[in-house]
């Protein structure tokens, strides 16, 4: 053990400022206690968990051949009843009476119980919101991270060629040309392996003109990714989604994935911007000098410092995704009509907004509360995960 003598003075300076440290809890325990102290964030989490379990209960209570709450019972004599109104028992058959004894959220233009429909739609709406945003955020962090961190690297002609060969291989395989497709794929993979091996050795021999042509820099990674972002932003995303959905079979999972695949651009820009500024900071240079791998630098050192704006945009993205799903359902591309989602209750209700405002307000408020609670939780989480802001609580 090495120890420095002749530095009592130094030790005094450095230990004086520190109060004796309490025994540390694990990170999780610590964060949990801070979350409990942060009232708003805790409330957000609580409401969110409540909604989650309601949605789970909703699936169980409204599905099956004889559901407890039947969202599809049509009672034309009871249409557009306001919330909390009692059903007219004389005109209803016994199996048509609402289980709660009253219409908690009123009925719609076909006399269906809005409460039952909200329950049925809760799970779909929540998962659409979260899965779509999850996909968008993952793609955004990945592409933004690459553009911000490796942006200055160039894509050379041989990269493009290899990608082309692989692409042709996949296309040939998918149209059923087994042999040619496989040959193309194998050639591409061999090329990749060859370049990986060559990279390990840093031979700088004089190369032939053809090889030099192949290694000509075509475009920088940053330019490529950010121009793709620009192109994606040029399309009105709703019509892009419509096009894709028209090609794919209509199912709720396809909708989630498609919404996710068309809304990652904002996150990519945020992450790239953060990475560009983080990359120049000394602590990143220091870990590079320590010989840490690029992947670890990106995910362990840079992403945690870049996540704050992403969280904020993600919370807003959830609302957008729920509403996009609503729009798709409205046009008949989303969830097939008898099945309810918050979005299609909302868009159906638009027609009766003056006669039956609850049809828009009930799902609207539900979406608002989910987004708000997630937003509060996200903001609290951001503060808790930032060591500097922790001390405020």
């Amino acid at each position, binding site marked *: 053990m090495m120890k420095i003598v002749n530095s009592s003075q*130094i030790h005094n300076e450095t230990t004086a400022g520190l109060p*004796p440290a309490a025994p540390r809890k694990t990170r999780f325990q610590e964060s949990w206690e801070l979350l409990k102290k942060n009232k708003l964030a805790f409330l957000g989490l609580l409401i969110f968990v409540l909604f989650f379990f309601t949605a789970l209960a909703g699936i169980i209570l409204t599905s099956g051949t004889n559901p407890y709450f039947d969202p599809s019972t049509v009672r034309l004599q009871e249409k557009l009843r306001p919330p909390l109104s009692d059903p007219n028992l004389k005109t209803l058959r016994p199996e048509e009476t609402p289980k709660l004894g009253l219409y908690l959220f009123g009925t719609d233009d076909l006399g269906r119980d809005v409460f039952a429909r909200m329950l049925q739609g809760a799970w779909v709406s929540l998962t659409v919101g979260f899965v779509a945003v999850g996909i968008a955020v993952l793609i955004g962090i990945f592409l933004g991270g690459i553009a911000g961190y490796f942006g200055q690297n160039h894509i050379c002609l041989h990269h493009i060629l290899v990608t082309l060969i692989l692409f042709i291989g996949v296309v040939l395989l998918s149209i059923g040309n087994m042999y040619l497709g496989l040959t193309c794929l194998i050639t591409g993979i061999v090329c990749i392996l060859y370049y990986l091996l060559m990279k390990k050795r840093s031979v700088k021999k004089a190369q032939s003109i053809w090889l030099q042509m192949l290694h000509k820099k075509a475009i920088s990674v940053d330019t490529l990714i950010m121009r793709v972002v620009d192109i994606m932003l040029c399309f009105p995303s709703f019509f892009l989604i419509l096009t894709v959905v028209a090609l794919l079979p209509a199912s709720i999972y396809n909708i989630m994935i498609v919404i996710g695949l068309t809304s990652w651009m904002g996150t990519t820009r945020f992450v790239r911007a953060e990475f560009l500024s983080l990359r120049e900071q000394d602590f990143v240079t220091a870990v590079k*000098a320590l010989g840490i791998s690029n992947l670890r630098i990106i995910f362990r050192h840079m992403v945690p410092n870049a996540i704050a704006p992403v969280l904020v945009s993600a919370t807003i993205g959830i609302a957008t995704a729920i509403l996009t799903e609503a729009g798709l359902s409205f046009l008949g591309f989303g969830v097939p009509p008898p099945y309810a989602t918050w979005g299609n209750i909302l868009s159906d209700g638009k027609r009766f907004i003056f006669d039956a405002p609850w049809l828009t307000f009930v799902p609207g408020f539900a979406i608002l509360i989910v987004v708000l609670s997630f937003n509060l939780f996200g903001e609290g989480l951001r503060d808790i995960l930032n060591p500097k802001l922790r001390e405020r609580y």
Partner: protein
Amino acid sequence: MTTNNAILKAEGIKKYFPVRRGLFQNVIGWIKAVDGVDLYIDKQKTLGLVGESGCGKSTIGRLILKLLEPDEGKIIYQDKDISSLSPDEMKPLRKEMQIIFQDPFGSLNPRMTAGQSIEEGLRTLPIKGHHERKRRIIELLNMVGIASSGADRYPHEFSGGQRQRIGIARALSVNPSLIICDEPVSALDVSIQSQIINLLKELQNTLGLSYLFISHDLNVVGYISDMVAVMYLGHIMEYAPIEEIYNNPLHPYTLALLSAIPEPDPDDRGERKTLTGDVPSPFNPPPGCKFQGRCPLVEDRCKKEEIAFYTVNENHTVRCWKVVGG
């Protein structure tokens, strides 16, 4: 020159940064940040690198660590040319050379505790087991004079001097032989400066480290260095042992730097040789001697002819027409 004992030699390294303008980002010129620099650092010795801001000192530090690729020249670390190594080949050598930064606020990851920051370095070593690493972290922290409890604290809970110590501990975590100190005390107040410099000297003695000590303050450099290189606009102007620099400074720029050191005794204050003007842009450096625009002794010859090194004696070289002529 005592080059046979050198841990690191740099021969004619150059680094030009492109200047891009316009719609298509055409290269319209080059900034010659480092323009042919020779350095050698002896084992367990300190080379001080002095110069004002923008003269390329920090670029040299990053070139040596291969955080930047040199455009020309050789960097020889313990008889091995590392200037053309690929990032993968460089990995095992990363443990040998480390860096300490100027800004104690930006040099630590704000989301990691001091212990975690140091642990990042230990991860590259074959140290197995959590406990072994923990023990080593505490050992490193104590070595730089931080209490063991500091391992679980975040950077913002420390003062500037303490953060600088943690930065040193992180650099030491991989057992390096050479440390590039990139203005490690410039952002600290004077009392803390001396503590950090003393700490660096103690660590040099106990661990046998070699330093490249980059600074703009000849006074600080004088306290820790064995050799000094004075740099101006990408060129080394004077290269000599520290005693020579103090007792027999030859280059007018060195004289100006020396006279900028504050003298506590008012009676000892001599005439100050203040330089006028700014450092010329490295994008468009003057012809001839790079210092000609601000040199009090400038002659016609300085404005026309580039000058090579003039060897005064075994260890002392200087780049000035005045010295050659006289």
